[in-house]
């Protein structure tokens, strides 16, 4: 067990250093974009994983928090003139608060009732933002071009975005690693495995579900703010659709729920797959992705619920 952990650390460290050096050797914008997307989706899937993978509460409406993050920093900047970094933090806090408000009543629901409730909430938020003029409604918000630089969170070349995305992902992975090793990780998994047994050991399951939810929502929102600053345009279709909720979930499942590396591996496979099939086949490309993902997910559900990480670690 110890040996595996060390091997794992060594591999991770090597990969991380390679990623740091990557921009020094590559200049193609396409590859930068690809890596940035991989980092972003790994971050999002990792965030979902805290609630869905570790704690077993499957949310199919998690795009809500991504959207809250994106809208918070964007509206803060466009409507209120607030610095986007502050907006990002504010977005994280707002997402946490909203997640607790949503979680409190819905965590009483078990199994599929909860899942369907998250779908309902996702759609409700989508409709709300589509009809909210101050937030741009269906048209969305375009971010203004400001003097590029770290302070304004805008850059000409892609390299800075690359490093920021990598940093955010690293932070999320570190937090998840700490959480998994602490009593929180054990409690979350106990809740996933057997809620009544968990309660008999003194675990207040509602409380800990909310804790997981808070962490999860926070990182989704951080990802949302980053996305807004990277793409410079947001609307409900791009930051709140159910498809996003589904993708995030799929990546985590494919890579391996309840593991740290799972979401990263999942993103590293699915994002290039998606981008290449879109580049090759256009609109049909995105359909082909779905066919492959769906097939993979069904196979995983039936044969190997622990995903790719399960195959790697032999669990």
């Amino acid at each position, binding site marked *: 067990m110890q040996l595996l952990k060390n091997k794992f650390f060594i591999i991770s460290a090597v990969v991380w250093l390679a990623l740091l050096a990557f921009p020094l050797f590559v200049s193609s914008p396409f590859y930068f974009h690809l890596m940035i997307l991989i980092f972003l989706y790994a971050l999002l899937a990792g965030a979902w994983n805290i609630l869905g993978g570790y704690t*077993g509460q*499957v949310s*199919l409406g998690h795009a809500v928090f991504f959207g809250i993050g994106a809208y918070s920093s964007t509206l803060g900047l466009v409507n209120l003139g607030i610095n986007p970094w502050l907006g990002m933090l504010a977005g994280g806090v707002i997402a946490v608060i909203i997640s607790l408000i949503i979680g409190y*009543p*819905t965590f*009483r*629901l078990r*199994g*599929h*009732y909860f*899942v*369907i*409730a998250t*779908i*309902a*909430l996702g*759609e*409700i938020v989508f*409709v*709300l933002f*589509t*009809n909210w003029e101050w937030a741009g409604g269906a048209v969305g918000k375009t971010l203004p071009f400001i003097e590029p630089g770290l302070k304004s969170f805008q850059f000409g070349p892609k390299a800075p975005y690359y490093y920021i995305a990598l940093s955010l992902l690293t932070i999320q992975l570190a937090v998840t690693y700490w959480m998994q090793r602490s009593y929180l990780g054990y409690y979350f998994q106990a809740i*996933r*495995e057997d809620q009544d047994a968990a309660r008999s050991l003194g675990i207040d399951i509602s409380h800990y579900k909310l804790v997981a939810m808070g962490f999860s929502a926070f990182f989704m929102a951080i990802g949302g703010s980053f996305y807004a600053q990277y793409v410079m345009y947001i609307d409900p279709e791009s930051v709140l659709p*159910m498809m996003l909720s*589904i993708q995030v*979930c*799929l990546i985590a*499942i494919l890579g391996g*729920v309840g593991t740290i590396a799972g979401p990263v591996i999942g993103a590293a496979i699915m994002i290039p797959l998606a981008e290449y099939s879109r580049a090759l086949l256009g*609109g*049909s490309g*995105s*359909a*082909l*992705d*779905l*066919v*492959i*993902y*769906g*097939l*993979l*997910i*069904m*196979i*995983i*559900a*039936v*044969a190997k*619920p622990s995903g790719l990480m399960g195959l790697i670690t032999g669990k």
Partner: protein
Amino acid sequence: MSDITGAVLAQTLASGLLWGFVYSLIALGLTVIFGVMDIVNFAHGDFLMISMFVAYVFNASFGMNALVSLPFNAALLFVFGVIIYKVLIKPVLTAPPLAQIFSTFGLLVFLRGLAQFIFKADYKTLENLTLQGRVDFLGIFFSKPQMVASAGAVIMFIVMYLFITKTKTGWALLAVAENKQAAALMGINSDRMYALAWGLGAACVGVAGALLANFYYVFPEVGAVFGFLAFVTVALGGFGSIQGAFWAGLIIGVTEALAGTFIAPSLKYLVVFSIYLLVVLIRPRGLMGHTS
């Protein structure tokens, strides 16, 4: 002024009711499966989508009216439901809940992607339908295809209700739903009953799809909204209750229509989704369901 409002109200109620019958029928399949075994088919809306595309293909290739292809739809979907049970559901019956959720969820993604890949995302309609137009009754317009769909829905409900309550096989289904082990002791093969439940559930949706294709667009994402409406309907009516699905569907149809007319068309789904949340939070077993 009140005359006009009255007329609008009446028309809204009429449309809502007709849609309600369709929702009931779609929900019927979902509630049958759930009633017999504690599994939610997340891909239920996409079963509907398949049926609608089948109707489209028969129409485009052979000029078949959707009502004529209806038996094929039902039979095809029945077989499909059984296959899905054997290949996807049976293996995950003993797996953790997470795996059960993934399984039909993966199916949802797969089916939608497949439909989009084969047929592209655009909206299709069936051509040369003999059944078209509206009936004017006391100043209220009833769409003919919708009326046929409603009649079809009512017939299916009666058929399913009689089957479940009056035939030996139906009783066997109920027995397995009630208590699998006791049913086994009585010689009932629960595996076959589960397969039957999936087949029947899918067949109901198959009928719904054939009827719906007469007056609604056929496209890959069509399963999304109808699937969700089916969940809301089943939740409201009570998971596992046939009667519940019937009345809940009508309520949802009327509520959606009223919300669309008197609040705003873009917000009508908001109302419906909010109903789901209210129901599961306040009265989890719905109108007519049993507590688990």
